[in-house]
């Protein structure tokens, strides 16, 4: 059997193959969890050593933009969950609508993130000579802030490409046999982006609000 003919439509519709696709995606999600986990660990250690400085630095992160983006991303996850549910009940019109909604919320997240970054740059919240606070630990907070939220935004941008591809497939008159699997696996990736954000939100946007 040649390599090109190994994966066929028939093999995709095989339940065993479908399970393998989900399993593979979950293994990938686990590696993503560990990828971000190392950064969460660095944050936890640095914050335990510099509690006051992190609380002071956290006040400069935008509570409004952070909360708004959390709402937007949770709603986008809801939209793609609707798309998966609609696909299970063969409601293709709702699948298309829900995928467009997911994309709109995803782009909305990036726009809000852009506004937030613009504000941060205007306040010179980039570690370096022009950083406003004299505390080195406050710069560590913002170093992690830029790296972690930036990597998350990069993942979300990739997610937009993945969901966009599913939407293009969903627009076809004749859907491929494996469409349900493509949608479900893409939705898993999108939800992971949401999971990571709901953990980023408290560590960057809720720090030091009560002091």
């Amino acid at each position, binding site marked *: 059997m040649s390599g090109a003919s190994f994966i066929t439509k028939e093999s995709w519709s095989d339940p065993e193959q479908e*399970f393998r696709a*989900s*399993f593979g995606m*979950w*293994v990938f*999600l*686990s*590696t*993503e*969890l*560990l990828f971000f*986990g*190392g950064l*969460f*660990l660095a944050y*936890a*250690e640095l914050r*335990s*050593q510099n509690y006051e400085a992190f609380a002071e630095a956290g006040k400069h992160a935008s*509570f409004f933009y952070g*909360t708004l983006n*959390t*709402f937007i991303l*949770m*709603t986008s*996850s*809801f939209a*793609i*969950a*609707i798309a*998966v*549910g*609609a696909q299970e*009940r*063969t*409601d*293709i*019109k*709702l699948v298309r609508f829900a995928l467009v909604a997911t994309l709109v919320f995803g782009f909305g997240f990036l726009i809000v993130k852009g506004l937030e970054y613009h504000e941060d740059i205007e306040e010179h919240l980039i570690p370096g000579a022009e950083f406003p606070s004299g505390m080195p630990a406050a710069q560590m907070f913002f170093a992690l802030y830029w790296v972690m939220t930036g990597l998350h935004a990069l993942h979300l941008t990739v997610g937009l490409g993945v969901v966009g591809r599913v939407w293009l497939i969903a627009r076809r008159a004749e*859907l491929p046999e494996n*469409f349900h699997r493509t949608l479900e696996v893409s*939705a*898993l990736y999108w*939800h*992971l982006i*949401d*999971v990571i954000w*709901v*953990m980023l*939100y*408290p*560590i960057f946007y*809720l*720090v030091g*609000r*009560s*002091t």
Partner: protein
Amino acid sequence: MSGGHPDRRWIWKSPFPVWLALCVLLGATGTIAWLPLGIGNMLVSTAIGMIKAILIALFFMHLVRAKGTLWLAGLAGLLFLFTMFLLTFGDYTTRPNWWHPAPVPPGQSNLEFPEHALHP
């Protein structure tokens, strides 16, 4: 796959309460963050974040109806993450003056064990 489907109520039935719960939790965590609870602020906001993540994993990512092997794949990442935290904080928390490190004289490191600990 055919066109429209009349029974859309069932499609919304499962994800909508989860989304509503996520919004309520977001409102709660955003409000509690402004209350003066000391270290409680961090504990509450992290706990609520974890509850939100678990809700998404269980219901949006369908772990609640997944086979055991998928749980294994998901939990493997969490297990290694937990081990990473355990080993790192097991090290740091057993260092002298970990929580409030004393000022370190120039040219020295606060990561070294004191002489009396090495040669009692």
